[in-house]
């Protein structure tokens, strides 16, 4: 049973589609204020798992317990808003329910893009768009932020800044964060718990311990582990990481 610190508890979630197992008995708890990062190779079921947690998809099996106070802010994988749809940032944040101008400005301010208020969505850069979507996610002052690949389509320095922003927002709002991510190097140091998913939970734990886990090494290779070690020693200098060939996993 979840205690009052637990916002969301999923136990033994299983999903299969067309005879293919996507998730096999995955369990996870999210506690108030914590940062959890979900990693795993492509097709590991990360997005599916998040969709089940959000109620977008139904699990075939398993239980989901939500706290009464749970308020989720969700940022889906990078959206492609069709060029034929004219829409400004302000209007996008007022969907589906009208939000007042001060509230909208507040949210945009939190993510550092208040200057985009009246701009059309199609004119934004990748990083700006992700910040707008992040602002949208925090509009209702959630206690759980769910971010699916938040740095997709953002350049390298932008990535670091965006992760720092997410952490700053967590500190300011005191919300928990559940994040799906491909690239381990930057995320890991700021995460309380890393869950490595590949249909089932391969391993989970604090970032320092997880990279030594045999299944983790098998999944991501030893090179990644060594890169992580390098990163951990110099985590204030993201340029070093770049020079030493920090790479993203597919």
């Amino acid at each position, binding site marked *: 049973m979840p205690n009052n610190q637990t916002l969301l508890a999923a136990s033994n979630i299983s999903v299969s589609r067309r005879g293919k197992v996507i998730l096999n008995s995955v369990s996870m708890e999210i506690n108030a204020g914590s940062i959890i990062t979900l990693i795993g190779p492509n097709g590991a079921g990360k997005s599916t798992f998040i969709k089940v947690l959000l*109620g977008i998809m139904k699990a075939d099996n398993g239980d989901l317990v939500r706290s009464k106070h749970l308020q989720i802010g969700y940022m889906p994988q990078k959206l492609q808003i069709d060029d034929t749809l004219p829409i400004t940032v302000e209007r996008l944040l007022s969907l589906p329910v009208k939000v007042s101008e001060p509230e909208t400005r507040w949210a945009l301010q939190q993510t550092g893009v208040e200057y985009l208020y009246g701009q059309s969505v199609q004119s934004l850069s990748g990083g700006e768009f992700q910040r707008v979507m992040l602002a949208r996610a925090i509009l209702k002052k959630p206690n759980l932020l769910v971010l699916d690949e938040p740095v997709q389509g953002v350049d390298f320095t932008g990535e670091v800044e965006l992760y720092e922003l997410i952490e700053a927002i967590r500190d300011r709002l005191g919300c928990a964060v559940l994040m799906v991510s491909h690239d381990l190097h930057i995320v890991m140091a700021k995460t309380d718990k890393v869950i490595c998913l590949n249909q089932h939970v391969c391993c989970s734990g604090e970032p320092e311990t997880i990279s030594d886990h045999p299944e983790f090494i098998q999944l991501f290779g030893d090179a990644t582990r060594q890169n992580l070690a390098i990163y951990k020693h110099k985590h204030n200098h993201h340029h070093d990481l770049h020079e030493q060939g920090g790479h993203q996993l597919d």
Partner: protein
Amino acid sequence: MSLAAGSAVALMTGPLGSFIVWRRMSYFGDSLAHSGLLGVALGFLLNLNPQIGLGAITFALALLLFFMGRKKHLSTDTLLGILSHGALSFGLITISLMDDVRIDLNSLLFGDILSVQLTDLFQIIVIMALVLGIVIFFWNRWLLMTVSEDLARAEGVNTHLLQLFFLLLIALTIAVAMKLVGILLITSMMIIPAATARRLVQNPEQMAVLAAAIGVLSVFAGIFVSVLLDTPSGPTTVATATSLFAIVYLTRALIEK
């Protein structure tokens, strides 16, 4: 009378057409419209009002597409291609086999806006009010769905239900608009005004309203020209809308240079 009926249809197709453009569903509208011919033919065959046959078939097809679309065995455009031309062919064959009924195929395919009666006008206005009411009611949720289906579902929007309503409204609009522009041209009356409005607006609401206005303008100009030059009214209306589109795009291209 024709002007009023045409305007009422344009007011519906403005906002609905905008959604069709945003959601890239013009081929879907086309398929529904083509299948309408089969509906009209069946209507005659069963001694029903052809418009009821038309409505029934487009509704049935919308439902079929809705459920088949959720299964995804074939890609949507393949599926639509099969249904669209299959239904059109079966419709044409059925009509050719009915010797005792005279059907004006030309007006079915291309419409005859000048033949609109007072009862037609009332019918169109009632349906227009219904369609616009539903569109306004669902507007924000449809819009969020267009931006992202996942986002909409995560925020508690029943996307399946909304999708179903959307398809049914398109079917309904096609059924009433067929008399005016015909089944081959009805989709163009949804798409062209919306596409013309796109370059002139900032927000979705502006686009829907402007698309409706451009539609009304096209109807007026189209009917005027068709009377003046004695050309068929349906194609003339569509040609007018297309010309407006070309003018707006060329002007924008010149200004932005």
